[in-house]
Every structure is written in structure tokens, then in C-alpha cells.
């Protein structure tokens, strides 16, 4: 934020007692000794209260004079009478000051210059989050890289941040936020998580030890088309923004589009509903890109997909009541994770399998990832329990992210210590 020093000084004065309404800044370029003399005379006339921004130096050097309103007439008369030509550089100094003030306020709302000045306590637009990602990478080039795993229906890039201290295809943790676009606290938490990972690494604490042996992949805006739509048009938009032939309405529920019990009860075949599963599994590029990534990587050991609201920690299955083989371990791990989460602010979470804890859901993310062999597959439903629902006040972003992070660490540490 560059502010001309002179104007800054004027602003400082202006905020006290003085106003510069009607003041003008005149420029004279003396081309003769006579003109130079006229200008030097002006300097001596104290009662005019002239403020020489550029004092007379020599022939050809511009002289800039701030002239208070009451002195304008006599000064101009003096110059004209002597045949000294002048130009008006600033027509009204106060107007310029006001505009500068407005600009300063505006620019403080523009993109921050570092992740240290980024406002984690506010909701951001897609552009702001994408800019944040680039800043984080630039500040931590040895830890963070940005991968484009595909493009959305509306051709927005799908970005995943990779946190890695080296190695080759290390066992990894995957975290995604914002797959349902109206769940704003999740993307906001994802941004906080990204910064937290970089910070921990820099300070050699927290997840730094996990990063010794594992990589972390974080997709902050998993549904960018939907997210943009929640900003521009409909704050309550949940799905993607795809239009398939034969569908009357727009959008597919990305959490019903996975190839696990696809199309069964627990999703809808009507494109106009919020749980429309889509024409076929992975029809949504937002989903397919993750499927392709997971398959190509082949070494993901924990997969966490984050939603809001309800305050729940869920493990598979959603599409069937048959318990997963690892039910007991996942249940115990959930208990530990929830205890860690609650320890911070006392936030109450319930946990269990999707179908027993929330409702039957087919084609859900973690059912597919579990069936791919990723044992530690979890879904979070973050704050709150319905008072604000999707419209969670921004003041709760950081506390939500902080407490959730504790639970995520429990899961990551368990995955690190229980290799399979």
C-alpha cells in the first residue's frame, strides 16, 4: 500500500484541525531570471500561507506551490500581472485527500501480501483463496506445492496443495473441504489448516513429525463452481454446476456421485433435488479428478472429507448397514479424535458410521475410498448443530478450525503409527 508521503502528512494534519478544501497546487516553470525572482518574492509573503512543495531552484526547474483558498486570487493576480504562466496541478487538495482515504480503505480489503496478513477470521472469495494458495507456496517452496488435478465443469482449475518434506510417493493423508459449496466454514477451515501445516513445519512442532514420513494433500475448494455460485447468486447452493443432457435442472450432489452403492436408495435420481447422484458414477469432474488422483497415487493411507453442519465424525458405510470390517478400530479412533476436539472448547460431537449416525447415503465419498483400501476414511460434519447452520458467523471459523485440527492430528498420527 503506497501512500505519497506528502499526502500522508497532509492527511495527518487534516485529521487534526486543518482542512484543505479549495486549496490548489500551482506549478510554475521559471524560464527567466525575472520569473525566478517573482517566485522568490512570493516565498517571503508569509501572510499568504503558501506551502512550497518544490521550492525555486533555478531556471527550468518546476516550482510547485500549495495555495490556500483565500490566497488563490492574489497569487494568481500577482503571477498574471508579471506574465508568469502557471498550470493548476491539483484543482482541490481536499478532494484528492478524500479519494486517497477511500483508496486506503479499499486497498486494505484487497489481496494481502503474505499469509501472515491474510485474515483467517473472515470468509473469502474463490479468487482470494486461490491467491492465498500461491502466497503459501511462494513462502514455503521447500514444503508446499500446488497441483492442478483437473478442471471443473465451468473450467475452473481444481487445486490440491501438497505438503511434503521429500521422499518418493510417501504414504499420504488426504483432506478435502468445500465439496458442498454452501458449507462455508469448511473451505475457511481448509485455509487455516494449510497455514497451520506450514507453521508447524517451520517451528518443528505439531504435524512436523508426521511430515517426516508422510505427505499431506489438501484440496481446499473441492467444488469451485458451486463456491463461486454461492457468492454470486445463491448462498445455499450445494451441488456442482453441471448440466447433463436429459436433466431438467443444474448440478449433481458430489457426495452421491462416487462408485460405492451408486444410485441406490440414499440418493435421488431427480436432477432437481439436492441429493441427485448424477447420470453415472464420477460423472462430475470434481469427483473424477480425485478418483484419478487417488488411484494414480496408490499410497494414500487416510482420507478425510469435510462437511458442515451437525458436529459429527463419521466412518463408512452410508450405503449399507453392513458394518465395515475395521468397524471397531475406526470407532475407537473416532472416540479419541472427538475427545481431542472437545478438549479445546467443549464442542460436542457424536460419532459412528454414516448410516447409523446420520442417514442412509449412497455413492458417498468415503464409502468409495474405504473400498479402495484406504482404511482410515472419515467424514466430518463441523459446527454448528442448526442454530446458524450453513450461515455460521465468521467469528467461529478459527475456533472451529482449531478444534477440528486436533481431531485430524489424532487420525493422522494413528495412520502414521499403524501402517498397513
Amino acid at each position: 500500500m503506497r501512500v505519497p508521503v506528502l499526502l500522508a502528512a497532509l492527511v495527518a494534519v487534516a485529521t487534526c484541525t486543518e482542512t484543505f478544501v479549495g486549496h490548489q497546487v500551482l506549478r510554475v516553470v521559471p524560464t527567466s531570471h525575472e520569473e525566478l525572482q517573482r517566485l522568490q518574492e512570493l516565498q517571503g509573503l508569509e501572510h499568504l500561507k503558501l506551502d512550497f512543495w518544490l521550492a525555486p531552484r533555478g531556471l527550468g526547474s518546476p516550482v510547485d506551490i500549495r495555495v490556500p483558498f483565500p490566497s488563490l486570487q492574489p497569487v494568481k493576480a500577482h503571477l498574471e500581472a508579471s506574465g508568469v504562466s502557471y498550470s493548476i496541478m491539483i484543482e482541490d487538495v481536499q478532494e484528492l485527500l478524500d479519494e486517497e482515504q477511500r483508496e486506503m480503505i479499499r486497498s486494505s480489503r484487497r489481496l494481502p501480501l503474505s499469509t501472515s496478513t491474510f485474515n483467517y477470521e473472515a470468509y473469502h472469495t474463490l479468487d482470494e483463496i486461490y491467491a492465498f494458495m500461491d502466497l503459501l507456496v511462494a513462502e514455503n517452496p521447500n514444503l508446499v506445492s500446488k497441483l492442478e488435478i483437473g478442471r471443473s465443469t465451468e473450467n475452473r482449475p481444481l487445486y490440491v496443495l501438497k505438503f511434503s518434506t521429500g521422499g518418493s510417493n510417501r504414504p499420504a493423508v488426504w483432506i478435502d473441504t468445500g465439496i458442498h459449496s454452501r458449507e462455508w466454514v469448511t473451505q475457511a477451515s481448509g485455509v487455516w489448516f494449510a497455514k497451520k501445516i506450514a507453521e508447524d513445519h517451520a517451528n518443528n512442532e505439531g504435524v512436523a513429525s508426521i511430515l517426516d514420513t508422510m505427505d499431506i494433500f489438501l484440496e481446499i475448494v473441492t467444488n469451485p463452481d458451486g463456491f463461486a455460485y454461492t457468492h454470486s447468486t445463491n448462498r445455499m447452493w450445494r451441488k456442482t454446476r453441471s448440466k447433463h443432457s436429459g436433466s431438467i435442472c443444474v448440478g449433481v450432489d458430489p457426495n452421491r456421485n462416487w462408485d460405492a452403492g451408486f444410485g441406490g436408495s440414499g440418493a435421488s435420481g431427480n436432477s432437481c433435488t439436492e441429493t441427485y447422484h448424477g447420470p453415472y458414477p464420477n460423472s462430475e469432474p470434481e469427483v473424477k479428478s480425485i478418483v484419478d488422483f487417488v488411484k494414480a497415487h496408490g499410497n494414500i493411507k487416510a482420507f478425510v472429507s469435510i462437511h458442515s453442519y451437525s458436529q459429527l465424525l463419521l466412518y463408512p458405510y452410508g450405503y449399507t448397514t453392513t458394518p465395515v470390517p475395521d468397524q471397531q478400530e475406526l470407532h475407537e479412533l473416532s472416540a479419541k479424535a472427538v475427545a481431542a476436539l472437545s478438549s479445546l472448547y467443549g464442542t460436542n460431537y457424536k460419532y459412528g458410521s454414516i448410516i447409523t449416525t446420520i442417514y442412509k447415503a449412497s455413492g458417498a465419498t468415503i464409502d468409495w475410498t474405504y473400498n479402495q483400501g484406504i482404511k482410515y476414511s472419515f467424514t466430518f460434519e463441523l459446527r454448528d448443530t442448526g442454530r446458524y447452520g450453513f450461515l455460521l458467523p465468521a467469528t467461529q471459523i478459527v475456533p472451529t478450525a482449531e478444534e477440528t485440527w486436533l481431531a485430524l492430528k489424532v487420525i493422522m498420527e494413528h495412520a502414521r503409527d499403524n501402517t498397513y
Partner: protein
Amino acid sequence: IPDFGHKYYLQFSTEDYRTGENAGSCLATVLYPRKKSPPVVSIKCSHTKDQNEIQEEDNRLYQRIRQQSKPITGSNIPDSYGNIEPALEPAWALAVAGSSSIMWEKSTEDVGYFLAQVKSVKQWMRKDDVIEFDYTVLLHEMPTQEMISCHMRLTWLPGHPLKVKHFCASENRRLEEGSGLGSGSAAGLSEERGANL
């Protein structure tokens, strides 16, 4: 209960919607005959506040609304960022109370609701002492995840129960894309159910 339906035994605590303070606890039984609504409900609650306190608070809310010189109007409460303008809090509070009656009527054994947002509120000034508001509210339906738009007309006089009339859009936003409307505010919300208030 074989051949009859399902009976639920509930024990739960309540909290003040504004402050989050504990407001008491309740014991209830809910009987759904073969998944038909409405269920048969018996409920007993203990309140942390006594009648006088409640009455006082009601009166304060009432006065706060009556003192406004202009009719209260607003939209998107809370806004996208979860903010509620202090001046609109009373209108929002009444919307919460009124919506609960809509949700009570609409919910079934399998379908429940939350108040997602007050899309619009408009106060109707009356010659008598009764407070009257017109609302469009968005109800978040579970497990369908749908946003149901409801028109709600609410009247209130302290010391009397809230009177609520509502009409919810039943169509599944099939018109949404065509008419360019937003979240499920279907065009056909013109009729009011029932007689005079």
C-alpha cells in the same frame, strides 16, 4: 410396537436460542402410528425461568418492536456471513419461534427441519396492539438436504400464544432454472391457507 407403529422415549435439555443458556429439560414420548403424521406426543418440561421472568422478557421484546417508528423490514437474516443486524434481532427471534410451529407441523418420523435463513421480513402496522409480520423463511430439510421456502404470517400479543399461518412451496424447484429465481422461492406463493387471522 408390532402392527401399530414406533414409540420413542426422549429426554432432552433445552437452551435459550439467543444466549445459549440452559433453559430447562424435558421428558417426552412420541408415538408414530405406522409412519403417519402427526404423531401422538406427551411432554413434560421443567423451566429454569419462572413465569414472571418469561413474561417480563416477552414484554421487553414487545416494547422494543412497538417503539420502532417505521415498519421493520429486512432480508437475508442472518446474511451470508452469519451476521444479524441488531435492529433486526427481534424480528428474527419471532421468526425462529414462528418457524418452529411450521417445522412441528411438517416433520415426520423420517423428515426433520432446521431454520436456515429468514429471506425476508415485513412488518404490517396495525391499529390495535397486535404485532404482525410477514416472512419468507428457508427451511433446511433433512435428510433430503432441500431448502424449502415458506411464506409465514405471524401475529403476536404478549401473554397470548403466537399465531402462525404458513404456506410452503411443495414443488422441487423445477422452476428454478427457468425463472432465474434463487433458492427455491417458487413463483406460486400467492395463496394463503385458512381463514382470517
